[in-house]
């Protein structure tokens, strides 16, 4: 459980040209949720998630994760980093070890685990992200962009955090690379249902596919929170904040506005297609 209370953050506080990036943020995220964090660029998403593992100290307010106040200056950074794994944007730029294995093993080694446990963690993490054993001896630089990124994510998963935070994990990837990362998030949630996963994304189609909750940031404040259905039912508000809804939702919203009877809350292609097919067959609305 993550509780954010009255969180404010100012870049360069007290200096000329200082800039407030977060305004009085209050949030509760349940353990085991898969949460998408969306918002225009500059809305404060990256700044917010850096508070989750004590990378930046708040100007005021608190973040409490599973009973630990991570914003308390006295809290041990190493304990927090064990609990909360943060995958930065373009994490593949930070790969530096000679082999894939060593890169993924880097974090667990720093935790002081024994050889056998380190090995187990590397195997488990690579299985989750879909990096096969035959690549363990490769240099990360011999891999494709999507593979590199998965190696970088495996390095954080191998720390076995309770909370995994990913900042724009699919940015710049092609559709297949994107699918790979999204399938990984879904698979991880199934295998480790107690892990809380928070990811930042600009692709509403992707958000609809993997998240169960959405947090919407706008100009440094939380503008909306709710289930995927709740948030995507507010298409006009989202557009007003420079966001969008998935194409399938645009299509079904327009058909509904033309007077056709479609169930509410359509945001995945599969469900949308079934609803439209039922309408074309002249079936009664089923809302399944």
């Amino acid at each position, binding site marked *: 459980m993550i509780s954010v209370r009255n969180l404010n953050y100012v870049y360069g506080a007290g200096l000329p040209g200082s800039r407030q990036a977060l305004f009085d943020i209050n949030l509760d995220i349940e353990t085991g949720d898969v949460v998408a964090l969306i918002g*225009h660029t500059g809305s404060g998403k990256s700044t917010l998630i850096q508070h989750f593992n004590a990378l930046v100290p708040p100007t005021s307010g608190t973040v409490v994760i599973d009973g630990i106040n991570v914003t308390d200056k006295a809290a041990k950074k190493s304990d927090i980093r064990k609990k909360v794994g943060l995958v930065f944007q373009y994490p593949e730029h930070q790969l530096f070890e000679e082999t894939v294995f060593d890169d993924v093993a880097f974090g667990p080694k720093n935790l002081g685990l024994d050889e056998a446990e380190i090995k187990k963690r590397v195997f488990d993490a690579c299985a989750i992200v879909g990096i096969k054993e035959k690549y363990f001896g490769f240099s990360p630089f011999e891999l494709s962009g999507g593979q590199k990124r998965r190696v970088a994510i495996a390095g954080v998963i191998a720390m076995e955090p309770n909370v995994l935070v990913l900042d724009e994990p699919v940015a710049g990837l092609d559709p297949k690379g994107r699918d790979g990362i999204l399938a990984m998030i879904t698979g991880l949630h199934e295998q480790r249902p107690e892990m809380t996963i928070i990811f930042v994304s600009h692709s509403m189609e992707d958000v609809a596919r993997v998240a169960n909750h959405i947090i919407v940031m706008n100009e440094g404040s939380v503008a909306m929170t709710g289930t995927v259905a709740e948030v995507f039912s507010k298409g006009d508000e989202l557009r007003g904040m420079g966001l969008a809804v998935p194409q399938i939702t645009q299509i079904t919203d327009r058909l509904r506005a033309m007077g056709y009877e479609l169930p509410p809350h359509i945001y995945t*292609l599969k469900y949308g297609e079934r609803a439209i097919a039922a309408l*074309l067959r002249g079936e009664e609305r089923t809302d399944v």
Partner: protein
Amino acid sequence: MIEIKNVSYCYHKEEADGRINENKVLNNVSLTVHEGEFVAILGHNGSGKSTLAKHMNGILVPETGDCLIDGLSTRDEKKLLEIRSNVGMVFQNPDNQMVAAVVEDDVAFAPENLGVPSEEIRRRVDECLKIVGMWDYRRAQPSRLSGGQKQRVAIASVLAMEPKYIILDEPTAMLDPKGREEVISTIHRLNRERNMTVVLITHYMEEAASAERVAVMDDGEIILDGTAREVFHEIEILKNIGLDVPQATELAFMLREDGFNIPHVITVDECVQAIAEALEVKS
């Protein structure tokens, strides 16, 4: 006209043991972009799109084959300056493209380097910032702008060279939906109103669907080249090489597979209209 004729290109990498490793990235690629066209290029990561783009303004020179810009070969070093002033490039990350501390200085930078007279520079800076809708921000610091705004300034900086051709390499990869929309509508307007020739590399299928023509790269080859409508009709080929189609296209495809009479579409508008028509016919 940009003519890429039977171009092949290898990157060479020296291994630790001194062996030279050859990585063939373009394999006999031919592509002609006519004046006034708007061409989107799709392809998975590593398929060679950026390498191809860098051939279009002579950053890279073909190993075999030729690349001609209005008849000038990029092999001819004496013509390189002329080629570069005709072909402007915009890259993925707007942060790496800003050189000055103030927006208008950034836009003036390239023409200054080309030795354009200062009155003419002033005219171009104002004009280009207006075109991309950033004139109000001419005195702003680039670091204070949003991603979409920075990318529009980067486009203005390229426009200030008054190129005939503009090549954009994933210009929207780092932007939010609104920033993406701003950049794409800006380049469509340039294409329409100024007859600027556009080559747009993108991973967003909806952006490609808005282009006249789409070329698809796979492992260093162009495997599809046609109108957006034709290319997105090849759903299975595209999915096989790890690409996708717009959701509107896929929805219509799924409905056809289920036996409904829905035509091939590539936009939300067309899709809504097609479904509404099918529902009318039924009732």
